[in-house]
């Protein structure tokens, strides 16, 4: 897949901007807070319909404007030329269009533009909190299985309702009604089981690919292992009804604690993705550099899996991260993607880049919401 151009209007700090991509690598160069990452964020929104930086569309619309527009033209191997359009409004109402035709369901927009994001925040994927790893996994699932986005949204709504009920019980506003609670439990368990199974299955597919990349980059023979670890007895090979039962059993066990704390304690919103190297938890293993190697392996595995499943090479978005990798890892990344993967890179300085990255790249200077020129 190739992103040919991107047009932004009233998006973040951009008044109006078009950008034509001509090569396989594009570098956006500029000081902090000039709008480099906003460009990547626009691509992220078109790809997965959400931004990892904000959940409010108000933040995405330029100050003093009501409406922001994004238009992108891309070429896919399987579907040819496509024009993606998105309108964002301050009041949160969005509309999306494909080839100029408005889509009633935003779900149909998912899976059109595939991408792998690698930002400097991802370097903490191993050491950071479990929500980072869940978020990473969800971002990948939404691209591979668009229906997952629907399940995720449904689960979020059930969770919100159930938490509101638990909170009201704790505050003494309502009495405990076992009938009603059983229904929220059942819905949470049904949708939660579906999420857990899909997450677990994805990790199983990702595992051998990530392991292979990890060995290739580290030059070692340690084994990387990725497992999904829910807060209830979970055996992925069990029938869906058995998994659901285990979920319900744990909810029963936690019922008192949930009422005391006024929040849901069991479910995919609390689950963990466990990364181990030779059976040792990765966060306790090795130096910061070795953990960066692991993250790089995960990202390359993501890239390979999307390609294997969709038959298209996804876009690679490197947000402020390339300069954080040493020259050896930069080269390993370059070897892996070569000219095959279209890559958009943001950076504040070119000094720490290997010359190979610069030689073939298209370089834009970004200043205060405008691309002021080519370097």
């Amino acid at each position: 897949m190739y992103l040919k151009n991107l047009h932004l209007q009233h998006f973040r700090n951009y008044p109006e901007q078009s950008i034509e991509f001509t090569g396989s690598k594009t570098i956006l160069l500029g000081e902090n807070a000039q709008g480099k990452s906003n460009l990547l964020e626009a691509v992220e929104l078109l790809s997965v319909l959400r931004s990892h930086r904000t959940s409010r569309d108000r933040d995405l619309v330029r100050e003093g404007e009501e409406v922001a527009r994004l238009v992108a033209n891309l070429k896919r191997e399987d579907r040819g030329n496509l024009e993606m359009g998105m309108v964002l409004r301050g009041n949160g109402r969005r509309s999306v269009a494909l080839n100029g035709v408005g889509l009633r369901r935003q779900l149909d927009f998912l899976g059109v533009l595939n991408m792998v994001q690698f930002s400097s925040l991802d370097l903490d994927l191993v050491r950071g909190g479990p929500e980072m790893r869940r978020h990473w996994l969800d971002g990948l699932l939404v691209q591979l299985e668009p229906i997952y986005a629907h399940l995720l949204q449904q689960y979020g709504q059930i969770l919100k309702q159930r938490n509101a009920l638990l909170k009201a019980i704790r505050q003494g506003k309502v009495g405990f009604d076992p009938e009603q609670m059983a229904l929220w439990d059942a819905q949470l368990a049904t949708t939660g089981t579906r999420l857990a199974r899909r997450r677990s299955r994805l990790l199983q597919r990702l595992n051998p690919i990530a392991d292979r990349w990890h060995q290739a980059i580290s030059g070692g023979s340690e084994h990387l292992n990725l497992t999904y670890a829910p807060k209830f007895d979970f055996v992925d090979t069990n029938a869906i009804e058995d998994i659901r039962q285990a979920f319900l059993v744990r909810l029963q066990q936690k019922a008192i604690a949930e009422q005391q704390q006024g929040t849901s304690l069991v479910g995919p919103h609390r689950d963990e993705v466990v990364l181990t190297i030779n059976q040792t938890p990765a966060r306790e293993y090795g130096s910061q550099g070795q953990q960066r190697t692991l993250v790089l392996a995960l990202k390359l595995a993501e890239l390979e899996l999307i390609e294997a499943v969709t038959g298209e090479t996804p876009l690679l978005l490197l947000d402020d991260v390339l300069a954080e990798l040493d020259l050896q890892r930069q080269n390993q990344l370059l070897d892996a993607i070569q000219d095959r993967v279209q890559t958009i890179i943001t950076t504040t300085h070119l000094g720490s880049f290997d010359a190979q990255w610069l030689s073939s790249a298209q370089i834009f200077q970004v200043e205060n919401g405008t691309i002021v020129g080519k370097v």
Partner: protein
Amino acid sequence: MVYTRPLARLTRTFPASPRHWPQIGQRLAMHIIKRPEEEVAALAQALIDAKKLVGTCTTCGHLSAEPVCEICRAPARDDTMLCVIADSRDLIALEKTREYKGKYHVLGGLISPIDGIGPEQLNIQSLVRRVSQTPIKEVIMAISPSIEGETTTLYIGHLLKPFTRVTRIAFGLPMGGDLEYADEVTLARALEGRRDLD
């Protein structure tokens, strides 16, 4: 000041409009101000009358100026069928089909802890009383398949099952809908609700 003072006051008199109708107050005000005075006076009177006279039916909960609404009083309607809906608007939508000859029960909302709505805030007690004390053969749950709708449907289903047969409306493809273009969620629902060919 963009609006002259009386117009601004009129715009503000629609402050409690639902949040998904932005600027409804402004639009209505601009429209009303252009109409002849008699028409506006009639509108004002109609608004006051509607507010004063319309309450809810003591039997089914539908909007009604009488203690018992027209549908509940209609002798031609089937007393043994009851259709449970969330809102009076749903009743109007169902009536437009002219397919249903039974009676209704309006809940007045859905179970939604976020909004502080539990079973006690809805017309559920009166529904159970109605079903347990009158010979009803079937209760049809006609509630949207949202998270809140699902919980409400199942909650009421449990309560009514000891007394009568409880069914729910089918969810699936719209008429004229193309199977190929249906989304997976709708298709899965339609598959779940499949039935034998007549």
